[in-house]
């Protein structure tokens, strides 16, 4: 089902024409209205008139999180504040929060793209949507909320936390669609079982999960435990919020980028040279239509590649491969790059391992140490020491095979790893560098 078939299935040439027109427009707008962008463009000697074709985007300077911080809070806004109707901000866990703004038109556009996303995931106006993304400065809650309303579905704005109550509400309201982080979906599934509720008796049939990287094995785990289709949604506040790209329920393979509003590029993660779309690198986005907070060539720090094959769902938008790591999450262990999602992938492939784990990085002398804590579920547990020791060895060997890093696997008691209420914390880095 489509929310906006005309655009979602538009022939590529027509799409490119719209993209170019919109790109020229946004570059002119930031040049004229945001002194910071104007100065950056003047530095490299590029004028808006130099953008004659889409590839000319490569002449423009990148924008980074650092640029956003330097202009805290409203320095990069391209409209006067009286046109701004809403502010969101990133959590600021890695420093000063980054602040973004929206005009009325931006909010409407975002709601439309989020409605498209929900539709692509298989939702319709008949659905009751349980929205457990946090409401507040975080874009997840309100972004998904407005999209669900634009779709015409019934929204339950439950927000994060109070998991037992959420389960009750979900059951009593017969919610059919769940929106939350993947780690919180597992917390919900576990809580259902604890409350004596069989997840398969819920009316839920699809979940749209995002805001943190998750592995394919995690997807299988969620689909099995909740008996639903698990769809990946992508977005970041700097670009808009959730709804920048979405998997279609038909394929669940790659996320269709809303290319009429966002222009994706892939660049080399170190040299920042543009890479062919099919190659893996850092994702870069330019917003084509946003008014209050347009961004030019924003380096997302997310690693992906672009799939240009036709999709069976009929959408002509290119797909980005599921993001399994952000450079922010990347750990360097004894010189090897390791993403938490790679460790998750190994853990989930071992029969009986619960999707609750913690990665602890430390340094003894000059040597980095990696410890993976895994909860012992009843299905893993044995009264024989050697069975449990073989299990930890098996996980160690598989992590070593995949990542080339040796680690220590520690078995811990059930529930000793804190459950996610939103974005899960997977890594504790104790190194003092």
């Amino acid at each position, binding site marked *: 089902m489509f929310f906006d078939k005309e655009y979602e299935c538009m022939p590529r040439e027509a799409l490119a024409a719209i993209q170019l027109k919109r790109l020229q427009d946004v570059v002119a707008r930031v040049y004229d209205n945001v002194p910071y962008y104007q100065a950056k463009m003047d530095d490299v000697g590029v004028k808006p008139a130099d953008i004659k074709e889409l590839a000319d985007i490569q002449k423009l300077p990148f924008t980074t999180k650092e640029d956003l911080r330097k202009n805290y809070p409203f320095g990069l806004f391209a409209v006067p504040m009286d046109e701004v109707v809403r502010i969101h901000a990133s959590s600021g866990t890695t420093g000063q929060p980054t602040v973004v703004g929206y005009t009325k038109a931006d909010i409407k556009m975002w709601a439309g793209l989020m409605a498209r996303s929900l539709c692509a995931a298989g939702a319709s106006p008949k659905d009751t949507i349980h929205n457990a993304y946090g409401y507040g400065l975080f874009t997840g809650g309100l972004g998904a909320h407005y999209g669900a309303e634009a779709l015409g579905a019934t929204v339950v704005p439950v927000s994060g936390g109070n998991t037992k109550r959420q389960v009750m509400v979900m059951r009593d309201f017969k919610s059919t669609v769940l929106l939350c982080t993947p780690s919180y979906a597992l917390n919900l599934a576990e809580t259902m079982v604890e409350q004596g509720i069989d997840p398969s008796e819920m009316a839920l049939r699809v979940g749209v999960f995002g805001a943190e990287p998750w592995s394919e094995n995690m997807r299988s785990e969620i689909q099995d435990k909740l008996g639903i289709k698990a769809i990946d949604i992508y977005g970041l506040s700097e670009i808009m919020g959730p709804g920048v790209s979405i998997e279609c329920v038909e394929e669940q393979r790659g996320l269709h980028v809303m290319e009429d509003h966002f222009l994706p590029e892939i660049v080399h993660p170190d040299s920042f040279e543009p890479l062919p779309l099919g190659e893996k690198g850092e994702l870069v986005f330019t917003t084509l239509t946003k008014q209050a907070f347009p961004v030019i060539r924003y380096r997302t720090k997310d690693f992906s590649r672009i799939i240009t094959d036709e999709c069976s769902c009929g959408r002509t938008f290119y797909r980005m491969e599921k993001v399994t790591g952000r450079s922010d999450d990347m750990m360097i262990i004894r010189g090897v790059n390791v993403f938490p999602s790679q460790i998750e992938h190994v853990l989930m492939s071992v029969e009986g391992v619960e999707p609750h784990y913690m990665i602890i990085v430390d340094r003894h002398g000059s040597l980095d140490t990696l410890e993976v804590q895994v909860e012992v579920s009843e299905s893993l547990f044995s*009264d024989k020491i050697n069975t*449990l020791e073989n299990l930890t060895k098996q996980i160690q060997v598989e992590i070593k095979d995949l990542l080339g890093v040796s680690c220590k696997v520690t078995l*811990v008691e*059930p529930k000793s790893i804190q459950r996610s209420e939103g974005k899960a914390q997977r890594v504790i880095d104790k190194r003092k560098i």
Partner: protein
Amino acid sequence: MKVEQIAIFLENKSGRMADITAILAQNGINIRAMSLADTADFGILRLIVNDTERARQILKENGFTVGTTEVIVAEVEDKPGGLARVLQVIKDGNLNIEYMYAFTQKSGESGLIIFRFDELDKAIDMLLKSDVRLLSGEEVYSI
């Protein structure tokens, strides 16, 4: 001839044994026999109690990982060579003991040895044929 044993996963941190025994005490569970197997990081506590199902249930409710296993309990004479005779039977039968531990009866006249085998039925068969007395679950739970 099979006796139910519960096994509990324990992280290697102080107070866990005290927690478990307190939970059992509050629920009137009596421990008949126990053994603790430990490694550097974790331990496995194995218990035979007077009410296996209830003990398993309450420990689970208190957040522990609990498993149940079947073991056999053999009576051995409390004199030199008592255990050696039983172990010889096991050796002759080419059976591998996963683990074993001992406790005594109130009378003190004979020792009781708990054996965990992978090939449990074969072990029962062999020991009975060699006139080793095996205790029934009811006998052990009510010691």
